[in-house]
């Protein structure tokens, strides 16, 4: 395959430095990089004609949607490209060397020592069988530094530096004994152990909940400033960009669409795609005032409790998690109530109790006066159609072996509609969610994530439910697609006068769509009120903390204008 030097819209990135000799101020410069994917991948080049620089002491943010090639470029710098993926053009200059020309051994000498890297998944990025201290000490070992004893001492210092609680204990802990945020701190400690010149952070906060995300971002910024390090920060979230970036590079389909100073890009994006991305960020402004008509409640939840008990195994003690404690709330017909809270606060459990995928231990779930909480078996099955759910994961929520039309028709068929009629209705529903009736005959894997989420919505609608529970229904989607799906939901809600229980950890999303918001922590409701009130006048410190943790909340973003 031939490498074409396509026209690159470098936008305001006209520094011209790409052709100059690497200046003393430039730590890393990538020039005309092409990375080829193996045959059969989604496209020929993961990265095409990419050139950007990271200067000393700056945080360079690489943004773009999933699959845009952000990680590939970073991996090329580390010399950790996956098998079958190769750089076919260009150079990567670092400390006067072209990294692409290094042997594996030379490259290895740089990794960890001069360039550190942090990955996205803190849950899996640590070896589950090794103590945390040993994993940090390994970095020194890899580069033949210090004695084993000193390594432990340094590891402890590092753990203190990244702010792990009880560092003496943490150093002897196994990864599973730490929370996600703590693990991410350990990984950062490892990456920083040898004081590298350049730190590459590949979406280090994506898997964390908002509050933890805020802490980690602050830690990175803090360390970067203290050490004068350069950071290449990869993210898909413009909020994060607004929070920490000095400069930004926006990528799409493997190409750079815009490159420049963070402030100018955010405030004044040149490229249409960048504009669209920024516009798609749910507004973090005060949510519009909405009329909350005081009609009779559709759903009444009274004193709901749910405790998960895990049975002990041979070596496992039994455990108890109080996922819901005395939760009460009401939801009026046609109303959208948002449930927010950090990870593990019980949001999903509440939603699952409402649709009766979980059986609550006690409490009442009155839907139009019918107590759903005590129904079982066939009686429950007959009432199920009244409350439907839209799931988080557009990939996992559709049976890969069932055609889309059938997936939607299954509900009506199970409730007695003849097959042909159900399938016809499925076609109509697909039309409504904007996919076209022809989608009936296709399999889920032939659709993109956003399209699948629409199929999920169509499925929920097929039974004419009175209430829909949406659990993180847009969290897995790229921002631009997120916006479309939210819009669709809003529109359907109006059209079909649905009630919506909207579960999300993203307060900006909640702000955009909800009439009222319920804040949960540790299985309890800490605060509830109209969206306006929660955002403008939070009563509880916890709510306040959640609001503060929204990345880029204070930063100027074009869309706010």
């Amino acid at each position: 395959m031939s490498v074409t030097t396509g026209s690159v819209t470098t936008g305001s990135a006209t520094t011209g430095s790409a052709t100059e000799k690497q200046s003393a101020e430039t730590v890393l410069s990538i020039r005309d990089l092409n990375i080829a994917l193996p045959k059969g991948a989604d496209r020929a080049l993961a990265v095409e004609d990419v050139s950007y620089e990271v200067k000393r002491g700056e945080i360079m943010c690489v943004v773009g949607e999933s699959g845009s090639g952000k990680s590939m470029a970073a991996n090329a710098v580390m010399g950790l490209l996956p098998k079958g993926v190769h750089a076919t053009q260009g150079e990567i200059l670092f400390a006067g060397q072209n990294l692409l020309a290094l042997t594996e051994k030379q490259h290895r000498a740089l990794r960890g020592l001069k360039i550190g890297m942090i990955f996205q998944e803190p849950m899996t990025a640590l070896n589950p069988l090794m103590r945390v201290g040993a994993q940090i000490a390994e970095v020194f070992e890899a580069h033949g530094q210090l004695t084993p004893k000193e390594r432990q001492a340094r590891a402890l210092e590092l753990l203190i530096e990244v702010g792990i609680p009880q560092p003496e204990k943490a150093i002897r802990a196994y990864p599973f004994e730490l929370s996600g945020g703590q693990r991410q701190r350990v990984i950062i400690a490892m990456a920083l152990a040898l004081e590298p010149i350049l730190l590459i952070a590949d979406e280090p906060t994506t898997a964390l909940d908002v509050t933890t995300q805020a802490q980690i971002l602050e830690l990175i910024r803090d360390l970067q400033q203290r050490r004068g390090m350069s950071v290449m920060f990869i993210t898909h979230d413009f909020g994060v960009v607004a929070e920490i970036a000095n400069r930004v590079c926006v990528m799409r389909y493997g190409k750079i669409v815009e490159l420049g100073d963070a402030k100018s890009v955010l405030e004044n994006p040149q490229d249409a795609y960048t504009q669209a991305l920024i516009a798609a960020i749910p507004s973090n402004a005060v949510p519009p005032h909405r009329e909350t008509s005081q009609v009779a409640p559709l759903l009444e939840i009274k004193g709901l409790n749910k405790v998960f008990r895990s049975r002990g195994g041979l070596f496992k003690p039994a455990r108890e998690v109080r996922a819901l404690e005395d939760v009460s709330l009401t939801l009026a017909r046609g109303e959208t109530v948002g449930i927010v809270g950090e990870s593990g606060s019980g949001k999903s459990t509440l939603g699952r109790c409402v649709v009766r995928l979980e059986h609550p231990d006690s409490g009442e779930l009155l839907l139009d006066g019918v107590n759903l909480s005590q129904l079982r078996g066939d009686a429950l099955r007959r009432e199920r159609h009244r409350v439907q759910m839209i799931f988080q994961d557009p990939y996992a929520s559709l049976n890969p072996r069932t055609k889309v039309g059938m997936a939607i028709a299954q509900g009506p068929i199970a409730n007695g509609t003849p097959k042909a009629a159900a399938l016809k209705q499925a076609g109509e529903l697909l039309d409504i969610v904007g996919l076209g009736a022809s989608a009936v005959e296709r399999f889920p894997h032939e659709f993109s994530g956003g399209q699948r989420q629409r199929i999920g919505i169509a499925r929920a609608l097929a039974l004419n439910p009175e209430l829909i529970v949406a659990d993180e229904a847009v969290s897995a989607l790229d921002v631009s697609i997120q916006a479309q799906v939210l819009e669709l939901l809003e529109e359907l809600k109006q059209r079909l006068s649905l009630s919506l229980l909207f579960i999300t950890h993203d307060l900006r999303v909640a702000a955009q769509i909800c009439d009222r918001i319920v804040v949960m922590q540790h299985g309890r409701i800490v605060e509830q009120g109209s969206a306006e009130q929660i955002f403008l006048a939070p009563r509880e410190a916890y709510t306040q903390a959640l609001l503060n943790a929204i990345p880029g909340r204070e930063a100027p973003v074009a869309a706010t204008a």
Partner: protein
Amino acid sequence: MVYARLIIMRLLKAVVVLFLIVIFNFFLIQMAPGDPAAILAGEAGATDQEFLNQLRERFGLDQPLYVQLWRYVSGIAMLDFGYSYRLGVPVFDLIMARLPATLLLTGTAFVLSLVLGIVAGSMAAARVKKPSGSIIMALALLFYATPLFWVALMSVVVFSVYLGWLPAYGLYTVGAGHTGFALALDVAKHLVLPATTLALFFMAIYTRMTRTSMLDAAQQDYVKTARAKGLKPSIIQRRHVLRNALLPIITLAGLQAGQMVGGAILTETVFAWPGIGRLMFEALQQRDYNLLLGIFFFSAALVIVFNIITDLVYSLADPRIKKGAS
């Protein structure tokens, strides 16, 4: 302490399972055609009704089934396994006399297959898509596909008959009067062919499993982290990939260690190894029910013991289990 209590719990459960197995086996064996007394009489070459009656009375076979069962079960509760019909010797003594040989054979085969399998598997994983790696896997497949008894027959012909390197059968050289180290060496020589034969199949399984498991582990994020530290590939392979890859192998090995006793029947027969598998086959053919039931009891007990050991080893290897991660 916690361990001790948990192990005791497990053992108590095991007792229940064993009890059920005893009952199950008792009825299973009752279903077999053939009256033990008639077989003994048949074997004697001459018989009359009186002889049969004597035998039946002696073994309690003239009693109703539930009485027999009750006698047997209550006997076992006192760790009394009764007498072998045919040999007139306490079953317990017979089994204890044969058990060491079986444990030696299967233990050696087990260690051999595990060690060689893991080594070969890791080598194959490191050489994935290279000819040397493919050759290892092809060999493993070959060992896997070759019937055990055929390997046994062929290895005797080659190594014992034609080459004369190794003894073809037995546990030791009868009449040589070896003691001490000489005896150990002699037994070791006798062990080579049967243990290797028995090991080959399992080795093939471990090789394949190790390879898959290592390739799997190599895909994990923590390996990427390790590479980002600048660690040498050899260290990454050993410390990060192999250690994690071993976890599923422990489970499999535990399952197989228990099964090896049964699997040794063929090997013990071909190599005249005086083990428990052969004893079992003979007992079955002779309808020596007491002996057969005793052997079943012991082999089931072995399986259970190995299961417990496996759990222990696993918990040592994986801190998540011991410390109770969810």
